[in-house]
């Protein structure tokens, strides 16, 4: 979002379809991921996020459609591609009794390019004091950080992160988000999947909403909200008897609902809040409570699919 340069796609997906038996996991999925952005594929569990991502990573072959990553065909040139990308898989495990340093050392030996310094990477990810620990004895957050280290070990051009923070506590989650922002700052492209709308909102420059194997819309989180959920709501409380009449006079509002001392004012667009504040100050209405309810990606999802992402 901060860049003004013309977007250059590093991932191009066009009309892919993947079925497992009679189940259509992914259908007619097309999107592009631009150089240097964090792109999120968001949707509920089972929507086709992982299948799509694994096709792009070259570990699954779509039945139809074309994919290009860094100019390569992911399935046909999978080893060439693997050398240039970093991958974190959903719910992956390692050998129970492999040590942290052995894992990093093994991974470092697998790639041609190896400019990322393994020890420094462990240090940056807060794993330096765990380098001799067995994988099975790491906490969930430590395991995820190790998988991030493995995804970064070859100094990749594109990093794939599949459900990165699932199962982590909020604190560990925030720490991981910081790491992902750091990846972008080093000029890498990040392609991630998540079913957490907050994660998508805080991390992603652009998101694609996927539902039942199909992409419904793609844009920045802000523009998706503006496009699909322009409603704004102001909730306030006042004992001023003249208030209700004044609120109804605000231009372009949809409704004013009163419940005892509390008013719920609905309208369209960002101007609503300004108009309400203007009205309060002009009429010198004293309020004891003032809240805005601003829609987010979760509401967008609900609006587009008719059900909550948590269902």
């Amino acid at each position, binding site marked *: 979002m901060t860049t003004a340069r013309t977007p250059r796609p590093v991932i191009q997906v066009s009309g892919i379809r993947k079925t497992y038996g009679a189940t259509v996991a992914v259908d007619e999925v097309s999107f592009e991921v631009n150089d240097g952005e964090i792109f999120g594929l968001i949707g509920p569990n089972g929507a086709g996020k992982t299948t799509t991502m694994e096709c792009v990573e070259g570990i699954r072959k779509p039945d139809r459609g074309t994919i290009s990553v860094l100019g390569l065909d992911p399935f046909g040139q999978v080893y060439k591609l693997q050398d240039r990308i970093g991958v974190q*898989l959903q719910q992956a495990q390692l050998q129970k009794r492999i040590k942290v340093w052995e894992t990093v050392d093994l991974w470092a030996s697998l790639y041609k390019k190896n400019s990322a310094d393994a020890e420094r990477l462990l240090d940056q990810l807060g794993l330096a004091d765990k380098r001799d620990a067995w994988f099975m004895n790491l906490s969930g957050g430590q395991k995820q950080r190790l998988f991030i280290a493995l995804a970064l070990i070859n100094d990749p051009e594109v990093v794939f992160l599949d459900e990165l923070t699932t199962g982590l506590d909020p604190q560990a989650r925030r720490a991981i988000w910081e790491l992902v922002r750091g990846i972008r700052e080093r000029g890498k492209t990040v392609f991630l999947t998540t079913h957490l709308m907050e994660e998508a909102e805080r991390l992603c420059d652009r998101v694609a909403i996927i539902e039942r194997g199909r992409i419904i819309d793609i844009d920045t989180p802000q523009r998706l909200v503006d496009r699909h959920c322009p409603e704004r709501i102001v909730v306030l409380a006042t004992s001023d008897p003249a208030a209700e009449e004044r609120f109804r006079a605000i231009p372009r509002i949809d409704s004013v609902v009163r419940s005892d001392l509390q008013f719920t004012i609905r309208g369209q667009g960002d101007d609503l809040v300004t108009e309400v504040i203007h009205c309060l100050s002009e009429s010198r209405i004293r309020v004891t409570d003032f809240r805005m309810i601003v829609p987010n990606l979760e509401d967008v999802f609900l609006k587009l699919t008719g059900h909550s992402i948590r269902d």
Partner: protein
Amino acid sequence: MLRGLWKLTWIEIKVFMREPLGAFGTVGFPVLVFLVIGRVAGRNLPAPSLATSSFLRVSLPVLAALLIAVSSVISLITIISIYREGGILKRLRATPLRPRTILTAHVIVKLALTAATLALMVLAGKRYYPIGMHVRWLGFTIALLISTLSVLSIGFLIASIVPTARFAQPIGAAILYPMIAVSGLFTPINSMPPVVRAVARVLPMTYAVSLLEGIWKGDAWPAHLVDVAALATVFFACTALSAKVFRWE
């Protein structure tokens, strides 16, 4: 292109040695069976007949060697199914590692383990076995490694059909141990019922027993070319088939 093979192999050896029961279950158990049965059989018969002495001299060492091979193979089946279930195989595949490199590393680990266990058996046998161990053991080691490789290729097929890691060990055991029973080690192939005989003829264990017994007794290799050819055929057939049916996740 086998980049990463030696590092991966060495890590797999270390990881295996860290298993609490890994080393004993695979290395110690066959040696223990060999020594205990040897002592019991040696003690109960103060004047060994020709039959017992042939049992102590040939059959028991060959049985112990086969147990070594089979426990290596069962260990392979178990590890592969655990790795598949845990997504470890998939994680290793999402790197420039070639699939065959990942599997070759496991084969090397199991062959090394087999050789090490055999060495331990020979060493322990020289000291504690009632009739001692007098064998050309370089030849015998090679014979055992050929046999193990052949059975390992069946192990990969079994690892492909095992539904979950929980069933890996019992299914592996249920397939492999009966193969020993009809291998001709206990009953000569020719005195078996025709149906069993036909089954025995297509199982690699039968040729492994023939090869191991022969080499143990001092036969020259040319006398066992048929056995080696049969074991090689099984290896190439199962490897080709595994390449088609092996499941990575």
